[in-house]
């Protein structure tokens, strides 16, 4: 407390609210700073997950390679998947939710700023906890799906699965709270006139994703709790010899796991649904249809989970149902693809780097989508299940879809966040090297998979004749890794000496481009009034809005104070889960008591209390 009331350094009165220094970041409740922290952290873990992938690729470079042991290989592919999904793809989307959504709907912050900070800190601590496992030599090793009964104490006696089950539980808390926060923000904090059907598509997809987060995460939470009870308290949930059913784990996991796929991809769809119209100089083609398609994907996404389990022997009736529902969900996705193409059709297209990544997504996600439709057929899936063909499929969807979408968002919104443009020349180099590296890595996996190379196996025999495909993949992976360094270099360079961006460098139509770049900490001096879907493309509407949004107010709007209780509570929650590892039932209660103290201090803190006079 004493730090926040210490005399402020002498600064000009206009900027005295923009605190700097480490403490101001630790206690921040500003959605923009939290967004930046999410982004930087997820970028760090992209590096971690990427290095894990590169070691995997080195091991697979030649048949019967002895570079790493099978045990280490298991840990690497498990942590690669877990990291990329829970520590990279989800938080990267949340980084954009945080920074962009309040700006797009004309809000000063999210509905619960402190809860937002709590979500971030839990994510950070959970991520650290999960990775501490490397340093004790017991990283999770049962793959990101952690099928029972491989995860039982009988077959996995070490700490590996403990780290996994508890780490994911911690991260789930963060996601549920984030979902609650963004649903409330989007329902309740829209500027006057920002009707639901006027919201930018990115906000819409955030909305749908948030519903999936609050509904899907509790399912995995229960599955993880049951597994934790099996491991720490010797219950029988997944113990077949005591009447338990290991297939129940698969159901619970995939009831979460398939909506999770849409949790990952819908934000990327949202990004490019904003980027493509901005650079085609045309409103999004069929806006309501794209919105409804997104909502429909959110709904049908709940009814397709067993297509991950065609080899579990559920019987012809269940299989037929899930074949049909899986084929049906391709329809709204296809609708989106056609709407993006129709938006570009006849538009005045500007091929900026952001636009190129968006178009890259449309092309490469379609490739992944097509192989997805192939596995939707149960008999075909039986041939492809657990082969590299599946690895190729979901990397086309996840890297070709999600990562490209996020890169598109980085190039699109970087000027808003920093006030400077990213270098377009380096950006295009980054784009082309990503496309080449990506296809070189993952396209050959279709073939190695078809030739019978299994997933999650640390080596292969020369007689399988898949060496050439693996070598191509390995070369491509290093190419892809190097291309990501180009992005880092571009960010570094542009932060220092990038071309200054005005408040709307792209001439984009949505509300976030009506305020200065970077925005003031209060975003909007007064709330603008929105009258259409593309408010900045109608001259009089833009003039009216910018008169409000670019105006420097005499007195700044009141914003919530910083708070350090979020980091305290996040620490408490993490410690509570981590202490479960002791296996003594009352030890985690110590962490719980600590958390409770933090929650009380939080509850009785008045976020708008006037600070002591400077």
């Amino acid at each position, binding site marked *: 407390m004493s730090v926040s009331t210490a005399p402020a350094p002498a600064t000009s009165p206009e900027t005295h609210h923009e605190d700097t220094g480490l403490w101001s970041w630790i206690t921040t409740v500003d959605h923009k700073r939290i967004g930046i922290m999410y982004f930087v952290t997820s970028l760090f873990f992209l590096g971690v997950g990427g290095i894990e992938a590169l070691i995997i690729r080195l091991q697979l470079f030649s048949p019967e390679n002895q570079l790493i042991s099978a045990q280490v290989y298991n840990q690497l592919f498990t942590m690669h998947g877990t990291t990329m999904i829970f520590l990279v793809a989800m938080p990267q989307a949340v980084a954009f939710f945080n920074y962009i959504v309040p700006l797009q709907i004309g809000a*000063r912050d999210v*509905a*619960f700023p402190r809860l937002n900070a709590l979500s971030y800190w839990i994510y950070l601590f959970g991520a650290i906890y999960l990775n501490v496992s490397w340093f004790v030599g017991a990283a999770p090793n049962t793959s990101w799906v952690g099928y029972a009964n491989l995860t039982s104490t009988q077959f996995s006696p070490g700490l590996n699965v403990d780290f996994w089950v508890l780490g994911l539980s911690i991260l789930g808390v963060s996601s*549920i709270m984030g*979902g*609650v*926060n963004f*649903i*409330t923000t989007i*329902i*309740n*904090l*829209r*500027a*006057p006139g*920002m009707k639901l059907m006027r919201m930018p598509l990115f906000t819409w997809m955030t909305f749908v994703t948030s519903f999936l987060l*609050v*509904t*899907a*995460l*509790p*399912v995995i*939470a*229960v*599955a993880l*709790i*049951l597994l934790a*009870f099996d491991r720490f*308290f*010797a*219950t*029988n*949930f997944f113990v077949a010899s*005591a*009447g*338990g*059913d290991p297939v*129940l784990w698969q159901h*619970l996991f995939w*009831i979460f796991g398939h909506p999770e796929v849409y949790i990952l991809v819908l934000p990327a769809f949202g990004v490019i649904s904003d980027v493509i119209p901005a650079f085609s100089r045309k409103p999004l083609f069929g806006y309501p249809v794209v919105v409804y398609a997104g909502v429909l994907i959110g709904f049908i996404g709940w009814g397709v989970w067993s297509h991950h389990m065609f080899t579990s022997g559920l019987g012809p009736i269940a299989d037929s149902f899930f074949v049909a529902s899986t084929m049906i969900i391709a329809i709204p996705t296809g609708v989106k693809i056609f709407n993006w193409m129709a938006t570009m059709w006849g538009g005045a297209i500007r091929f900026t780097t952001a636009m190129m990544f968006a178009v890259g997504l449309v092309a490469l996600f379609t490739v992944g989508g097509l192989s997805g439709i192939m596995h939707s057929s149960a008999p075909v899936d039986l041939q492809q299940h657990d082969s590299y063909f599946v690895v190729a499929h979901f990397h086309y969807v996840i890297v070709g879809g999600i990562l490209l979408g996020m890169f598109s968002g980085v190039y699109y919104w970087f000027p808003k966040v920093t006030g400077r443009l990213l270098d377009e020349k380096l950006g295009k180099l980054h784009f082309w090297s990503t496309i080449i590296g990506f296809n070189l890595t993952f396209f050959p996996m279709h073939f190695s998979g078809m030739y019978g190379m299994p997933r999650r196996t640390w080596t292969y025999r020369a007689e399988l004749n898949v060496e050439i495909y693996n070598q191509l993949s390995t070369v491509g992976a290093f190419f892809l890794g190097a291309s990501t360094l180009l992005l880092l270099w571009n960010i570094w360079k542009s932060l220092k000496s990038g071309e200054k961006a005005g408040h709307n460098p792209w001439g984009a139509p949505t509300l976030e481009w009506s305020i200065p770049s970077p925005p003031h900490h209060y975003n*909007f*001096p*007064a*709330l*603008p*009034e929105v009258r259409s879907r593309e408010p900045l493309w109608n001259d009089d509407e833009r003039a*009216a809005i910018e*008169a*409000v949004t670019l105006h420097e107010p005499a007195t700044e*709007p*009141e914003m*919530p104070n910083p708070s350090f209780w979020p980091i305290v509570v996040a620490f408490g929650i993490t410690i509570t889960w981590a202490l479960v590892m002791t296996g003594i039932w009352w030890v985690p209660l110590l962490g719980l008591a600590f958390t409770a103290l933090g929650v*009380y201090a939080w509850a009785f803190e008045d976020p*708008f209390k006037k600070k002591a006079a400077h």
Partner: protein
Amino acid sequence: MAEAAAVAHDDHHYTSTGLNSWKVGFWTFIGSECLFFGTLLSTYMVYKGAALQGPYPGDVFDIPLTTISTFVLLMSSLAMVLALDGVQRGNKRLALFWLGVVIVFGSIFLGFQYYEFTHFVHEGLTLQQSVFGSTFFVLTGFHGAHVTVGVIWMISLFVMGLRDKLPPEKALSVEIAGLYWHFVDIVWIVIFVLVYLIP
């Protein structure tokens, strides 16, 4: 525009729907909790009759006893409604009385659960005994944990009320605590029907 500026001046109380954000957020959280208990209940239902060794549900359940504890819990919801009414009217005595009733009834329910659990363990039904034991204790245990959190929450509100910190303007914090309490009650109704009443 003047209207928008006026709205903006009213800073952190403006919402697009007119609903308080805490309320919207809490309903969303309850939606999430539905899936949480839904999954636990599904697990119980999937494993119904799968226990390989006794005691079986019919051996241990004492329906009249659980009916009493269920009734007490349901009545606590009525007390919750009356406590909120007391706070909204600014009637401190009424509010404290009914909050006290919620706390007592909630604690009685927890007492019944404590008795039930120890009795079952005595009968040989432990967490580890069978899938029935595992699913039963984890499901009702998580419900009991929710009731415990609710009782602690109510005690906090009670203490605030004693210190005159629950004026009618603070009724929303009681209303949200009430939403939680009613939700936990409704979950129990489902558990009581699916776990105890259906043989």
